[in-house]
């Protein structure tokens, strides 16, 4: 009986994680001026367990992060993480719907030719 309860609880936990809702955090990060900055910050943020996608907008000084709702995205944690990478974390806003796609974070897609021939809107 004990075993059955444990298995059921385990399955419920797994099921719960599998269907955890992704939310979006828009982090305001100062000091980022170049593509290297974006790569460094994104790499660090991607290491947080629960983060599924990251995208940087240098002009707005924001990094958008898609993560499971229960992901630890506390201010002290983000501040420490980004300070280590050489930037200043300012604040964050939370959106219930994640609007960035994983493809946006693919740094391999950033290329010399792509940079010249991409159609800008």
């Amino acid at each position: 009986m004990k075993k059955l309860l444990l298995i059921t609880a385990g399955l419920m936990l797994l099921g719960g994680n599998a269907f955890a809702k992704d939310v979006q955090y828009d982090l305001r990060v100062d000091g980022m001026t170049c593509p290297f900055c974006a790569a460094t910050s994104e790499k660090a943020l991607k290491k947080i367990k629960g983060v599924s996608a990251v995208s940087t907008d240098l002009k707005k000084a924001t990094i958008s992060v898609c993560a499971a709702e229960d992901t630890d995205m506390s201010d002290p944690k983000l501040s420490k993480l980004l300070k280590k990478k050489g930037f200043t974390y300012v604040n964050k806003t939370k959106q219930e719907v994640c609007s960035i796609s994983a493809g946006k974070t693919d740094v391999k897609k950033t290329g010399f030719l792509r940079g010249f021939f991409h159609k800008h809107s």
Partner: protein
Amino acid sequence: MVCKFNIKKGGLTATVTICLTIAMQALAAPITFNTALPVSDEEFIVRQQIHYSKASDNLGSISRDVKVWKSITAVGYGVTDKFAVFGVMPIINKDMQIGSVKREVSGLADMKLFGRYQIYRKDGPGTTTRIAPFLGVNLPMGKTGKTSDGSTDYFGGLILTRASTNWNVDAQLKYTANGKYSGFARGNEASLDASLQYRINTHNANVNISGYLFTVLETSLVYADENKIGSIIDLNTGGTTAFIAPGLQYATKRWIGEAAVKIPVVKDLNGTALQPGITIITSIRVNF
């Protein structure tokens, strides 16, 4: 980076000293000096440069011609968010002809090791200002009398960087105290370098789609003391030189490709010292 052509007494040996200094993190960075190369905490950066320089003049009826190919590999590691260490390993090939005398030397040249500590940082949205002193040593790894003068040299300086998403300004003040080996002491050297990088493809801010293309203009002012052989001053060494270096830089999230042409504009060298020529620099760097 500072390039110095230095013809020793007798005119048979030419040495080229390339000073690579690397520092700040997370910014675009100059091409001809490396004090603003980006390296973050617990990350590596590798920069590979190829330099080609040519200098020639006539000393009375004797023509002098020096061509130098140089491969410079610089590796940096961010020990903390403020402190980074770097190593620079040059391999050179010098082809010299003075009158009818030809000489070619090649191999490993002197290795530079140095550290940089950030003492000031002020960040804003899409902007940053950083100041960092650096201190290093030039180890005589090359063949003495060929690709090295055999001395251990020390250098230090200060880097200032002001950057935004559309332009960067970097400045470096540097002093090199050259050591003595086997009676020969190269003159000490002071330099002031500056770099302005201006972004020209500003229509797209999404770094995930395209990189940043910068036009670059760099300047360098170098003063070198005369060399000493024993207690005798070599009057045909040392002096003041200044350079400008227009270039291009393409920066993506993981690599940067860049090229510049370093042109001497002031050649106020002592005695019969060989006047510096043009240096072409190509470079690629990757961080990981």
